[in-house]
């Protein structure tokens, strides 16, 4: 077999790929086309293309990610562009995919693996919890696992049973995992690039229902910015975004619930209420500062998440805000979350998902008349 892969990752003491990165960046500058309507799917796909161009140790594998380009087409064209050694289909075995990725990461690669659906990632849970999350700690930092596990997650696409789960809390609850979840195309590009370059393992939770939503984005420009600032001075990790400024109350959301929060804020504005929307972006590490600053300013907060509320990321956010902002609060923090039921089938999904009306009802409840 001819060794087509020669560059190793930097994580476990191997050769740097900075030169390759610089060259790729220079090549990219040429054909900049300005902002275009770009889907999150395209942004994610482009992030992988650029990462694979910049660093030969980046590999992409999973189920149907090769010729088909993934069931959501996020890996479209990667096998054709980079060859079957760098993008390939594995046998159908999620534990195998993640476990093999662990071994590859130990041995100098930066694997980016795809779980086909949120609810089909569970066979990999043991590998994720017992090894992905713990390897760095149990080897005293000697072994780093620079790997990304991409999970299409959450609802809103009318998926039949086992095709929509809000599984982020399982991963966020596991110490040693970073958990990213973008809500815009531009963030998706940047955050996936950062996840791939991170020396820590990242659970990259992709809101399925946002795959086809578009933003005006200049991907080449994003690439230049990212690669020029590879020092991470402007990292999105641990940095929430204020997606809309406001003064009366803060809506805290992440991933799939950010558009609902923005829509609610727009509707509230028409009724004369100014809502700020904070997009968490990385659940782990969590940006307490941005969230607390916003709530201290507005004095009121509603946390919005698709996942069941019980023992969830949303309960964690409420606890953290309460601990930091108690004396600034004019009302108890409210939550708008999925109900504590198994993820509903398409015919019932509509009743389950947090929508604009339910969010506005919660806002109305924030003791405005006191």
């Amino acid at each position, binding site marked *: *077999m*001819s*060794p*087509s*892969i*020669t560059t*190793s990752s930097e994580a*476990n*003491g191997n050769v740097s790929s900075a030169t390759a990165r610089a060259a790729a960046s220079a090549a990219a500058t040429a054909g900049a086309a300005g902002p275009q309507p770009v889907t999150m799917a395209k942004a994610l796909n482009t992030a992988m293309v650029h990462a694979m161009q910049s660093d030969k140790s980046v*590999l992409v594998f999973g189920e149907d990610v090769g010729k088909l380009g993934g069931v959501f087409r996020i890996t479209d064209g990667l096998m054709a562009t980079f060859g079957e*050694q760098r993008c390939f289909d*594995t*046998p159908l*075995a999620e*534990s*195998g995919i*993640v*476990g*093999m*990725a*662990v*071994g*590859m*990461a*130990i*041995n*100098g*690669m930066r*694997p980016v693996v795809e779980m086909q659906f949120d609810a089909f990632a569970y*066979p990999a849970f*043991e*590998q994720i919890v*017992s*090894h992905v999350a713990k390897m*760095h*700690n*149990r*080897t*005293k*930092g*000697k*072994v*780093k696992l620079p790997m990304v596990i991409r999970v299409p997650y959450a609802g809103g696409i009318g998926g039949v049973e086992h095709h929509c789960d809000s599984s982020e809390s399982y991963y966020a609850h596991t*110490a*040693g995992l*970073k958990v990213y979840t973008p809500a815009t195309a531009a963030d998706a590009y940047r955050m996936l690039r950062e996840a791939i370059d*991170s*020396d*820590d393992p990242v659970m990259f939770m992709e809101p399925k229902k946002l795959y086809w939503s578009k933003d005006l984005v200049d991907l080449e420009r994003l690439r230049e910015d990212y690669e020029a600032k590879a020092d991470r001075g402007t990292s999105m990790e*641990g940095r929430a975004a204020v997606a809309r400024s406001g003064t009366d109350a803060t809506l805290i959301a992440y991933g799939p619930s950010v558009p609902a929060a923005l829509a609610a804020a727009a509707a509230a504005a028409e009724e004369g209420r100014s809502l700020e929307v904070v997009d968490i972006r990385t659940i*782990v*590490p*969590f940006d*307490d*500062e941005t969230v607390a600053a916003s709530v201290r300013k507005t004095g009121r907060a509603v946390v919005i998440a698709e996942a069941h509320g019980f023992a969830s990321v949303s309960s964690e956010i409420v606890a953290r805000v309460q601990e930091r902002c108690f004396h600034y609060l004019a009302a108890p923090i409210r939550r708008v979350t999925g109900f504590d039921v198994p993820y509903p089938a398409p015919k019932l999904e509509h009743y389950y998902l947090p929508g604009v009306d339910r969010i506005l009802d919660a806002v109305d409840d924030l003791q405005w008349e006191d």
Partner: protein
Amino acid sequence: MTISADHTAPGTAQAQPGPEQAEDIYLPGAAAEAVRKFGITAEDYMLPARHQIQMVDQDGNLKHHSEQGTEPGHEYPLPGDHELLTAYAQLVIGRRVNDQNSALVRQGRMAVYPSSQGQEACQVAAALCLAEGDWMFPTYRDAVAVMARGVDPVQAMTIFRGDWHGGYDPLEHKVGIQCTPLTTQLLHAVGVAHAAKLRGEDTVVLAMCGDGATSEGDFHEALNFAAVFHLPVIFFVQNNQYAISVPLAHQSVAPSLAHKAVGYGMAGERVDGNDVVALLAVLDRAVKLAREGSGPLLVEAHTYRMQAHTNADDATRYRQDSEVALWTARDPLSRMRTYLAGRGLLDDDGEARIAEKAESVATQLRNGLGEDVPVDPQDLFRYVFSSPTPQLKEQAALLADELARDAAGAASTAEASE
């Protein structure tokens, strides 16, 4: 690649190729070669030989070639004298380590020790068959194999003293941290081999597990991945008959564990796990074939766990003394001593030198594990991520403050009582 000349079965070289040699079925290198060379079918190559491979019997006699269990396509040359002597020394050291650790557990100086007493031949062969640069992925029972790969004995026992980390640097030694979640490490072996193959390196990876562990899903996934990606991984199963209390018959009704290999399209072999000569012969050839590009192999070693699962277990609840006695007679050390002495390779002086070396390792363990290693509470936070998150920094500060106040409190109490 070729199956080396030294593996040729006498008298079978001219056998006619079987009908399975059809051009359109894909055969891994060694299987295709065996079909061509020995005229056996691919299935016969992948299936284990009819009997386990045994070269030195339990009384220390070298068996006649015709009685070693070898067959065409399943031929194993006798390892060289130097390798056998090295193996014997490691056997003695391994036994001494097992004894020493069991004593340290009784004295409360080790938290737990899953002893490999009785399985030392497997431990030693697993380490010696590999070349520098090859990787090993061991289990909790394989501390002796880890040491035999060159890891410092005290570091190899770090987990068992109840420390929070794995002790040694896996990248330095190319030995995974001894793994407890059963068979999860087999997939890491597959990944390490896959990465090496993509870079064009000829690294071989030996992945270890027990008989009971073969029921786990990751065993299946790892063997299948290794076969499909045609990776140089040797799956080495120490069949010591029990998984804690559960005998193998409750795990599997396959004719043998080695028979599982054919279902993945790889070759399997079973070997007397208390005969280090046969183990080295089989594993050396497996490593050679894997390195030459034949893909993965499965080797099942028949052995016995002479002691309880760990010090916390009571083996008398599930097995008879008579069964244990049967295996005492099959001891891997005594048969090797008899064999080497009979061949004039080992005399009293040699024996004494080896015993001395074993004793110095035991002393190292007693001293190393007797020492109290100071713990740094801040280590709780240091290595969770490559750099601590703001939340972990906050929690680290909280603990530091709590400890500082405790210390200040203790100091003022001491002052007051002066």
